[in-house]
């Protein structure tokens, strides 16, 4: 049996009396694109915080490439690449300095870090900007640098938390295309959190999260069929209620 890039089983989480996640189950296979669909406040960021071990899950298990995040964080986090919702690159440092810093955080030597960083920058077409400060890049370019940074240590799983927020249509498409090519080239498992329904394709896996609960999961096509809807947007609206239609556009 192939080890899943990510396997989440029976995870619940509360902040005091507020239940942020209730019995969440989710798998991402190597080379698979899994869209985590949910509105703001659905629990996506909490789930990401648990997978990245900002705080521990108290119930259920989260495994990255077969390693339990809570019990074996050193092993699990080695295989995890993350693009956070907020920009997490340092604007005062150059593109290359940001990437080599990340390489050091994974224990790479200076030479290895620079070589891996340049290789990733070439893939996103920004090798010529390696010595430019982050603040001189456009929003889309900075986002691509964040993706390159997340891949410097060659993870098996890439988490992206609303990676296209605030970007123009062209940049959004570029990032989508780049991530999908990574899946094919590297066998990377991708968990892509979004509330933008046009970012998913019929063959993708989809998990609909609402008020901390998984309302539907399966391929996008299956979710649409089960709901008797004509599109994922309609299926999503059917599952989460009509009041959210505008937000989920």
């Amino acid at each position, binding site marked *: 049996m192939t080890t899943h890039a990510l396997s989440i089983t029976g995870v619940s989480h509360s*902040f*005091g009396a507020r239940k*942020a996640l209730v019995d969440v189950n989710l798998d991402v296979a190597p080379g698979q694109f899994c869209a985590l669909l949910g509105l*703001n*406040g*659905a*629990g*996506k*960021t*909490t789930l990401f*915080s648990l997978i*990245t*071990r*900002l*705080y*521990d899950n*108290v119930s259920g298990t989260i495994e990255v*490439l077969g*390693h339990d995040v*809570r019990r074996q*964080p*050193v*092993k*699990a*986090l*080695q*295989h*995890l690449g*993350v693009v*956070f*919702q*907020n*920009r*997490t*690159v*340092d604007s*005062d*440092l150059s593109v290359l*300095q940001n990437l*080599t*810093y*990340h*390489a*050091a*955080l*994974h*224990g*790479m*030597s*200076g030479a290895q870090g620079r070589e891996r960083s340049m*290789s990733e920058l070439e893939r996103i077409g920004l090798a010529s900007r390696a010595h430019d400060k982050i603040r001189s890049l456009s929003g889309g370019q900075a986002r691509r640098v964040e993706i390159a940074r997340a891949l410097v240590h*060659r*993870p*098996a799983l890439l988490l992206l938390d609303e990676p296209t927020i605030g970007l123009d249509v062209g940049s959004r498409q570029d990032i989508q295309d780049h991530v999908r090519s990574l899946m094919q*080239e*590297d*066998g*990377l498992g991708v968990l892509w959190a979004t509330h933008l329904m046009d970012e998913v394709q019929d063959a993708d896996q989809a998990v609909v999260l609402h008020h901390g609960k998984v309302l539907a999961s399966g391929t996008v096509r299956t979710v649409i069929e089960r709901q008797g809807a004509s599109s994922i947007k309609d299926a999503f609206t059917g599952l989460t209620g009509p009041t959210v239609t505008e937000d989920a556009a």
Partner: protein
Amino acid sequence: MSDRASPNVTRTLGPVHYYRCMAGIVWREALRFVQQRGRFIAALVRPLVWLFIFAAGFRSVLGVSIIPPYSTYVLYEVYITPGLIGMIQLFNGMQSSLSMVYDREVGTMRSLLVSPFPRWFLLTSKLAGGVAVSILQVYVFLLIAWFWEVQPPIAGYFALLPALVLSGLMLGSLGLMLSSVIRQLENFAGVMNFVIFPMFFLSSALYPLWRMKEASPLLYQICQFNPFTYAVELIRFALYMKVDWFSLAVVAVCTLVFLSLAVFAYNPSKGLIARRGGPGGAS
């Protein structure tokens, strides 16, 4: 698949990996400091204003008797220099905490914490970066102060280094601990009012404690419970190649306590972030 494809090999992280990680974190702190020239200048101007203006004004008002480690009467500028060194480290420790709050809000703290190394190690490395920066500031300050008749023995500059490391760690870990409690950037003003100023003024930085005892026995007692007093005394003695063992013990114990509390606060299962819902208020 391309030749770049991940082999998905799980590595064991050994001492060399730990060293690279810490060196990377310290290097980033140094780079950030060097590139923020305004911060560097502000960090120097603050103690220099105290040395050039405050000390000159109070030189004739405040007489300082012969007290250890001094073997003779000293100028007031000479007396307050260790206090101003402590002030540099105090501000630096708190500014590191400000940068932690800022980092946490913009997310770079999250990218640090997602590293596979243990969290205590990541936080200690971040602390080491802050201490390295503060030591750089202190020596530049001492170089300028030398031209202002503050001229401790040359060997004292070397003896000072371990004391600076320890006092920097204590004040940095205090800042680190506070950073887990502070949620809003604006709260740094609160840190100034409720942490920096009381710690600085209720210590032996500006006046010997016997002077304070004459003025108010209560304030004297408070000064004796202020860990900053012991950081200043540790620095003062080290600068004259002496060791104040009691101060050394207090600073070491406080460092351990503050750092333990900070690591606890950032602990993924027990800490404050887990209870509160995390940086930026996770949804």
